[in-house]
C-alpha cells in the first residue's frame, strides 16, 4: 500500500500461547471442583470465553449446563451448582448476594463458587462477608488477563477501565495492567526499553517492575524488545473522530465485539444475520481492513473481476483439467467468493447508512473543528443536530470535539448548548454533563485563565502555516497552544493539497489525510528519537508524566528490537491500529497493540452515561 515498504519486518511472536494458558487455567479451576456442575457466565465474559474454549471443552470437565448470569434465583437440577460467576467487569458483583439469599429463602442450600476474572477484589469478599454468605460461597480467581484478538492485537477486555480510572479515579485496574504486562514480559520478554506517557502508564510500569523484582527472571531470547505505554487521556481527540478506515468503520457501524461482528440481514442479503470473525484469517478482510473506505470499493470490484476470470477458466477445460480445477482451486474460490460478497454487502450497507446521515457534512464539520476554522458554523451545525434530536451520542461527540479543540466552550455557548441538549435528550443528562466535565471532555472556558477566542484562533492560524514546513524535519514539532487543555499540533493538518488516498504518504490517511492521530505520532516521534528529547514542549502541553527507561540487558541488536508493544491504557481504536500498522510497514517495525479494550467514540461516550436506572 505504501511506496517504501520495508520487507524485512520481523515475525510476530505467537500469541496463541496466551489463549492456551487461559484455557488450561480455567480447566484447572474446574477440575478443582470434582463432580458435575453448572456454569453461570456473566454476559460480558461470554465472548471472551468463546474465543478460548468451547462447549465441548467445558463438557469434558463435568460442566453440565451453561447459563448466563441473570441475577435471579437459579433453577438448576445439579445438586452441586458451581456458580461460575465470572464477574469480569464486576459491575454487578453487588447483586450476587441476592441470588444466594433468594436461594436460602427457598430453603435450598447449594454450594456456590465464584470465579472472578481476571482477579478478585477485596471489596467483593467484604460484601459476601457483610451479607453473611461468606462461608456459603467460596471464591477463586481466573487470571485471564490477555485475550489475543488477532496476530497483532491483544485485549485485556476491560472496557470499564476508562471510566473507572479516568472518571472515578479508581486505580483498581492499575495492578491488573501491570500484571498483564508482567505476563507478556515473562513469556515474550525480557523487554529492553520501556517508554511511556501518562500517570497511569507510570503506575502500571511501576507495578510491573515490582512484580518483575518479586519474581525471578529466566534468561531467554526476547521476542518483544520495546514497550510503549500510553494513557488514553493523552489523546482524547482521536477516539472521538469518525472512523473512515474499513475496520474502524465496521466497528463504528456494526460494533465488533471480541473480534467478531454480527452482520445484519441488510448486509447478508438474506433474512438472517450472521456472525463473522474479522481477523487476518479472513483473506479479503485482511487486505482491506487498513484501507481508507473510499479505496475499498475499487479493491473489491477488482477482486471480483479476478474471481470471475478464475471461474471463467473452466470454459475451455477438458475433463482432466476440470478435475484438477475442482479438487485444487474450486474450494478456495468458493471461500473467496463467500468472503467477497460478504464484504461487498457490508460496504454497501455502510455506504447507505452513511449517506442517510449526511456523513460528508458531518466529516466536514469534524475537520473544521480540528483545524479550528469556521467555529461558529460548526456550532450551528451541532445545534441543529441537537435540535433535530439526531443521535444523542453523535451530538455529544461533536460537543466534546468542540470543547477539546477549543479548550472549552465559551460560557455563553456552553450554557446554551447544554440547555438545548437537555431539552432534546432528557434532563437526566445533567449527570452526563457532570461526568464529561469531571473528565475534562466537555468544559466551560474559565474566564481569565484562557486566551480569548480571537487570540487562540490567531495562534492556530500561525501554527497552521508553520505546520506545512514542519514536515520537512522530524525534529520540529509545533503545538496548538490553546489554553488549559493544550492540543499539540501533531495533528499535522494538511488541507491545501490533494491527498492521494491510494498511495498514503503518512498516517494521516486514516483520517482522509486531514490529520495524524496524536497518539500514533507521539509513538513515532519517541521511537525515532529513542526517547523524549526534543519533545519537551509537547509533553509539557500534555501535562508531562513521560518516561523512557532502559533495562540492564539492552544493547543486543536482535530482531526483537524491531517488535514494539504498544499498550493503551483506557482503550484504543481500530484507526489507531491501522495507523501503527502503516508506520510499521514504513519503518520495518512490527507493532503489537495491547489495549484495555477496543474502543470508539460511541463506546467511550456511552461509558460516561449515568442514566440507566
Amino acid at each position, binding site marked *: 500500500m505504501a511506496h517504501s515498504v520495508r520487507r524485512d519486518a520481523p515475525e510476530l511472536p505467537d500469541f496463541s*500461547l496466551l489463549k*492456551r*494458558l487461559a484455557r488450561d487455567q480455567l480447566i*484447572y479451576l474446574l*477440575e478443582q471442583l470434582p463432580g458435575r456442575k453448572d456454569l453461570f457466565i456473566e454476559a460480558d465474559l461470554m465472548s471472551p470465553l468463546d474465543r478460548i474454549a468451547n462447549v465441548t471443552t467445558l463438557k469434558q*470437565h463435568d460442566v453440565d449446563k451453561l447459563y448466563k448470569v441473570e441475577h435471579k434465583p437459579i433453577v438448576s437440577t445439579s445438586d452441586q451448582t458451581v456458580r461460575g460467576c465470572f464477574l469480569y467487569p464486576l459491575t454487578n458483583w*453487588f447483586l450476587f448476594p441476592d441470588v444466594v439469599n433468594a436461594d436460602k429463602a427457598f430453603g435450598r442450600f447449594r454450594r456456590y463458587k465464584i470465579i472472578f476474572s481476571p*482477579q478478585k477484589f*477485596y*471489596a467483593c469478599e467484604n*460484601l459476601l462477608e457483610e451479607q453473611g454468605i461468606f*462461608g456459603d460461597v467460596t471464591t*477463586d*480467581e481466573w487470571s485471564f488477563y490477555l485475550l489475543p484478538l488477532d496476530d497483532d492485537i491483544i485485549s485485556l477486555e476491560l472496557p470499564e477501565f476508562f471510566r473507572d480510572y479516568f472518571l472515578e*479515579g*479508581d*486505580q*483498581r*485496574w*492499575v*495492578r491488573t495492567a501491570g500484571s498483564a504486562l508482567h*505476563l507478556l514480559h*515473562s*513469556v515474550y*520478554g525480557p523487554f529492553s526499553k520501556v517508554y511511556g506517557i501518562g*500517570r497511569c502508564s*507510570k*503506575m502500571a*510500569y*511501576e*507495578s510491573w*517492575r515490582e512484580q518483575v523484582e*518479586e519474581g*525471578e*527472571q*529466566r*534468561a531467554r531470547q526476547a521476542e518483544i524488545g520495546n514497550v510503549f505505554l500510553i494513557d488514553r487521556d493523552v489523546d482524547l481527540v482521536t477516539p472521538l473522530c469518525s472512523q473512515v478506515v474499513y475496520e474502524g468503520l465496521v466497528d463504528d457501524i456494526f460494533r465488533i465485539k471480541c473480534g467478531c461482528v454480527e452482520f445484519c440481514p441488510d448486509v447478508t442479503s438474506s433474512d438472517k444475520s450472521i456472525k463473522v470473525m474479522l481477523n487476518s484469517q479472513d483473506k479479503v478482510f485482511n487486505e482491506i481492513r487498513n484501507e481508507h473506505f473510499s479505496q475499498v470499493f475499487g479493491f473489491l470490484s477488482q477482486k471480483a473481476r479476478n474471481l470471475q476470470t478464475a471461474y471463467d477458466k473452466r470454459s475451455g477445460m477438458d475433463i482432466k483439467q476440470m478435475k484438477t480445477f475442482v479438487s485444487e482451486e474450486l474450494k478456495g474460490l468458493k471461500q473467496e467468493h463467500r468472503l467477497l460478497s460478504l464484504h461487498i454487502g457490508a460496504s454497501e450497507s455502510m455506504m447507505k447508512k452513511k449517506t442517510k446521515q449526511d456523513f460528508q457534512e458531518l466529516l466536514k464539520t469534524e475537520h473544521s473543528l480540528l483545524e479550528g476554522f469556521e467555529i461558529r458554523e460548526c456550532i450551528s451545525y451541532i445545534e*441543529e443536530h441537537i435540535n*433535530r*434530536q439526531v443521535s444523542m451520542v453523535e451530538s455529544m461527540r461533536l460537543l466534546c470535539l468542540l470543547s477539546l479543540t477549543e479548550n472549552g466552550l465559551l460560557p455563553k455557548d456552553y450554557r446554551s448548548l447544554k*440547555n*438545548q441538549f*437537555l*431539552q*432534546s*435528550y*432528557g*434532563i*437526566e443528562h*445533567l*449527570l452526563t454533563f*457532570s461526568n464529561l466535565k469531571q473528565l475534562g471532555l466537555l468544559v466551560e472556558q474559565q474566564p481569565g485563565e484562557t486566551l480569548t477566542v480571537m487570540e487562540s484562533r490567531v495562534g492556530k492560524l500561525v501554527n497552521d502555516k508553520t505546520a506545512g514546513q514542519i514536515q520537512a524535519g522530524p525534529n520540529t514539532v509545533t503545538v496548538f497552544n490553546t489554553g488549559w487543555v493544550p492540543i499539540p499540533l501533531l495533528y499535522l493538518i494538511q488541507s491545501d493539497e490533494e491527498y492521494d488516498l491510494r498511495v498514503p504518504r503518512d498516517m494521516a490517511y486514516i483520517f482522509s489525510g486531514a490529520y495524524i492521530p496524536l497518539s500514533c505520532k507521539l509513538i513515532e516521534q519517541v521511537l525515532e528519537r529513542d526517547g523524549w528529547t526534543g519533545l519537551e514542549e509537547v509533553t509539557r502541553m500534555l501535562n508531562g508524566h513521560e518516561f523512557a*527507561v532502559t*533495562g*540492564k*540487558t539492552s544493547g543486543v541488536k536482535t530482531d526483537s528490537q524491531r517488535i514494539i508493544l504498544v499498550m493503551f491504557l483506557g482503550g484504543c481504536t481500530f484507526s489507531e491500529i491501522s495507523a501503527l500498522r502503516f508506520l510499521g510497514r514504513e519503518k520495518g517495525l512490527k507493532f503489537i497493540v495491547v489495549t484495555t479494550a477496543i474502543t470508539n467514540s460511541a463506546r467511550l461516550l456511552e461509558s460516561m452515561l*449515568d*442514566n*440507566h*436506572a
Partner: protein
Amino acid sequence: MWREHKHVFSISNVFKLKESKRAVNSIRSLVEEEDEEDDVEKVSWSGEPVGSISWSVKETESSIRSTGEVRDQSFPKIHTAPSLPKNSSGYSLSSLFKEHSEKLLTSLILYLLDCRWSVHDDVILLWQDYVSDWTPEETVKRMQQGKVYSLEKFRSLQDKLLLLDEAVNAHDGNVITAVLIYLKKSLSKEILFRELITREIALRHYIHYLKEIGEQKLLLMQYRDHLNVRDENKRRDFLKNCLSFPFSPDDATHVQDHYTLLERQIIIEANDKQVESSGQADIFKKYPRKASILNMPIITTLYYSCFYHYGESDGTFSSPANIRKTFRISDKQFLLTCLGARAKLKAWFDVDALFTTKNWLGYTKKRSPIGFHRIVDILQKNNAPVQVLQDYVNLVEDVEQKISLAQKYKCHDVIINTYRDLKDRQQLIVYRGKVERSSSEYRKIEEILSNSVRW
C-alpha cells in the same frame, strides 16, 4: 479483618485441621515434583499439550513464574506520584520469635503460591498463631500478592493512616479500597472524612466504593435516584423533593424544569389516554399513540404537542405555545420541531403558516430562522411532494445551491425558471436533454427557447 479470619476459623474443627494437613502434604509433593521437572528444563513452548491438564497448567504457570536464578534484568524505579511523608516508626522485625515465624511463613507462602486460593482457608489454620507484626509496607505488599494479611493491629489513627498512605503509594486500587473498608469499619465517619479530605486519591476510591455499594449520596447522585422510582407520581414527588437541594443556579433551573415537565406530562397523559380510549378525537383515531409521553424529553413533548394539540389556546398545558414559553424554547428549536410534526401529518398549510409573516402593509413574506435549504431537507425527509418542496427550493437565496437542490429533488420548474431568469440558454438546452420528450417540462423549455423576445 481479624473477624473475617475468625469467621473462617469457626467453621474449622479437628477433622478439618487434619484434612488441611493432608492437603498441605500433598501440595508439598507436588511442589517437589515440579522442582524436579524444572531442573530438567524441558519446557516445551510449542503449544503441544503434554500430559494431564493440571500438569499442563502447572507447566505453563511455572514456566511463567520462572525457575532459574538468572536475574540480569532490572528496570529502574520511576517517580510515580508526589511521595507521601513516610514515618519510620518501629515496625522492625527484630525479635527472634518473629524471625522464626517469618521463616515458617515464607515456606507456607511457597505452598500457598502453588495451591492458590483453593486451599487457602485450610492453610490459614496453620498459621493463625504466627500472624505477626507486618509493617504497613509489608502488609500492602502481601495484600497485592493475595497473601494472608491482617489489618487488626492497625489501631491507632496514625497507624491506620500510614497503612492508607502506603496503599496509595502502591497504586493498587484494590488494596486502597480494602484498607478504606477497614477504616470505615474502625473509624468514626467524621474522623475518616477529615483525613480523607487531604488525601484525594483515597477519597476518590472511597466515593467510588460507596457509589458501587449504593451508599453514596452526593448531590447529583441523589437526583440520579429518581431513575429508580418507577411510579410516575412518586417520581414527580421525588423530583419535587430535589428542588430544595443546593444545586448550582444553572442546574437548579434544569431540575425545576424536570419537575415541571413530569408534572405536565402526567396531566397530559391522563387526559389524552382518556380521550383516545373514548374515541372522541379524530387525530388519535387516525394516528394512535405509540407510547406514553411520560418521561420523554422536552422536545419530544413539544413534538407530541405539535402533533396532537396543535392550535390549542395558549392557556392549556398541552398547547405548543405554552410548552414553548414554559421551557424557554428557542425560535429555531421551536420551528424545527413544529415543522417536523406538521410535515409528518402532511399539514402543508400549517407548514406554510410557520414561515409566513405579514408586514405593516399587509404583504406576506416568508422568513425562517434557519436556511431554507435546511427546511427543504427536512421536508424532503418527511416525504413532502414536489409541489410543496419547490416552493421552498425557490426561497433558497444562493442560486447554485438552489439549482443543486432542485436537481436533487427533481423540481423541474424551479430549474427551468432559474435558467430562464438567468438567461442561460445553453443550460436550458442541456437540461432539455435530461427530461423526457413527452413531458410538460420538455414543452415548457421548448416554449421558452422559442420565445425570441427573451433572447
